[in-house]
């Protein structure tokens, strides 16, 4: 298969600098756009490509951009493009790879995306712990300014763009795009009410697009090689390639670029090497900590947004977390709920007070203090907290996804904790 996003990535060789990036065709997408394509032309190609956001929601990128007021329809002032490099979804480890080893690919994608929406300022909002990526992105930005790929009159086109790396000060909620915008404004990262959507009123009240790292990394290739080529990369219904990852107790955990629509089984068995010896697959979260469990009945599903959606989960970030038969499902869900309860921004009650309640019930069950009616309490919480519209943002409903599906698929395990008065996985006897 043709490598697109990872074609320059050979971790043993270190990061790709400007010389190496350009030697392998880098910045040809930008050159093509700057020498004759209008922002409308570029945006049209991206719309035609069917690229969908790689941050987890899968929203069509071209459509997201189409809500930004252009030309006369936009009041005078700045427009912003923001890269969401706040990778913190539990079990997700793909954007780190893209930024540490090929920073120019992201930057080229950002320049092109900013051009598409007419932005003149752009930020890479990156989690503070990614110190290596921050350093390499800053070096790459300096190379771009030196070559005239950023700043005034980019490649002689008259287009002007400045770009800054903004290391964040933490908190998972900053991955929510309006919370991220508040963080960029120096405020507490509480999500904002929508509408207005950031495309109309985002950073400092100006039109703003927030895109994930992997989404932006696709743009140079789409502009350079066209929408049809991109659509042809997928083997299922979705377009392009995707970084798929597997973590948990498999033989070869890792992250690989594969066609969209690659079956789960192929990723798990051919790339991750299958389960470690002596372990069986019990379930998996297909795309990060806030996606519903699927089971071995779903191994032949294609990793496409709608296919995974129809099976009752979400493709999310495309990085799977594997639950084996000797790891306690209640303990795993408790770990996730504990995480989300801790990361609640505290703005709305169902999230701030509901998630700690769920955590408490799960702790009781896991520690052998559970009662039969606790499962009804969990169901009540799932229905209340998990309903979109009861909470200010998607954090708490996302937290309910692994819980509701664990209760559906592994209910027996919850019941055994309660009837036995202890965690059956902790004795060493296992399942």
């Amino acid at each position, binding site marked *: 298969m043709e490598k697109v996003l990872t074609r320059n990535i050979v971790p043993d060789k270190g990061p790709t600098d400007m010389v190496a990036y350009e030697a392998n065709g880098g910045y040809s997408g930008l050159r093509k756009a700057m020498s004759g394509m209008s922002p409308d032309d570029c945006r049209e190609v991206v719309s035609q490509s069917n690229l969908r956001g790689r941050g987890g929601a899968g929203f069509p990128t071209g459509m997201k951009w189409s809500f930004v007021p252009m030309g006369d329809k936009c009041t005078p002032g700045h427009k912003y493009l923001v890269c969401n490099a706040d990778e913190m979804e539990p079990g997700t480890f793909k954007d780190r790879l893209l930024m540490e080893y090929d920073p120019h690919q992201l930057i080229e994608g950002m320049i092109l995306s900013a051009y598409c929406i007419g932005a003149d300022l752009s930020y890479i909002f990156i989690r503070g712990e990614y110190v290596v990526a921050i350093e390499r992105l800053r070096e790459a930005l300096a190379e771009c300014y030196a070559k005239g790929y950023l700043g005034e009159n980019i490649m002689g086109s008259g287009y002007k763009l400045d770009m800054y790396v903004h290391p964040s*000060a933490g908190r998972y909620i900053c991955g929510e795009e309006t919370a991220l915008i508040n963080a960029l404004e120096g405020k507490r990262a509480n999500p904002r009410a929508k509408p207005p959507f950031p495309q109309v009123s985002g950073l400092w009240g100006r039109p703003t697009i927030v895109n994930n790292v992997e989404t932006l990394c696709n743009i140079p290739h789409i502009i350079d090689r066209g929408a049809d080529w991109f659509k042809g990369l997928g083997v299922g219904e979705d377009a392009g390639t995707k970084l798929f990852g597997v973590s948990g107790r498999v033989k070869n955990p890792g992250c690989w670029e594969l066609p969209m629509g690659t079956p789960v089984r192929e990723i798990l068995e051919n790339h991750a090497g299958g389960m470690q010896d002596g372990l069986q697959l019990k379930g998996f979260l297909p795309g990060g900590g806030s996606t519903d469990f699927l089971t071995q009945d779903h191994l032949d599903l294609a990793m496409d947004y709608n296919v995974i959606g129809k099976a009752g989960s979400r493709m999310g970030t495309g990085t799977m977390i594997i639950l084996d038969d000797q790891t306690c499902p209640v303990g795993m869900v408790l770990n996730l709920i504990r995480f989300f309860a801790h990361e609640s921004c505290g703005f709305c009650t169902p999230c701030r007070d509901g998630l700690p309640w769920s955590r408490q019930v799960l702790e009781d069950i896991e520690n052998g203090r559970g009662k039969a009616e606790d499962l009804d309490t969990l169901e009540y919480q799932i229905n209340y907290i998990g309903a979109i519209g009861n909470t200010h943002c998607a954090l708490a409903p996302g937290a309910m996804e692994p819980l509701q599906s664990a209760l559906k698929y592994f209910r027996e395990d919850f019941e055994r904790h309660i009837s036995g008065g202890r965690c059956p996985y902790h004795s060493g006897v296992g399942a």
Partner: protein
Amino acid sequence: MSDTRIIQTDLSSVLTVEEIAEIDHELVHIPYKSGAAIDALKIVQKARGWVSDECLQAIAKHLEMSSEELEGVATFYNLIYRRPVGDKVILFCDSVSCWINGCDDIKQAISDKLGVDYGETTNDNAYTLLPVPCLGACDRAPVMMVGDELVTNLNNEVVETLFASGKSGGKQ
């Protein structure tokens, strides 16, 4: 003489010239001074390790915002430290992939070795131990950061080697 005047006099010398210059540099692309709040907290923390009450008040004054508002910002973010920390902060990942791979036992080993639990600093001030959301290196779990360095594939031997000179623990 009012208390306010005394505080203002004191605050003028809290931040260094270099810190103020660095904060002002951030203001170039930010339309409101308070927009640099998080940058300013990070700049001040960089050299000092943490943000004291005096520093917080001085930053607030410089950015023309109330210190209460800035405190609300500072305490929201887990990488802004409002209490002193050790020379290196250990950011220990306890998220799901690390948990599946046994991070609870590793955390216990570190706590035993260094004599500190989450939120505590060793007596020799070498380390502060804190939990952190998923560090995005799940294929090499369990992982943690020690200062700026990512340490992967943690096991008891790695912990033993890393903290070989482990001081007798203690709590602050």
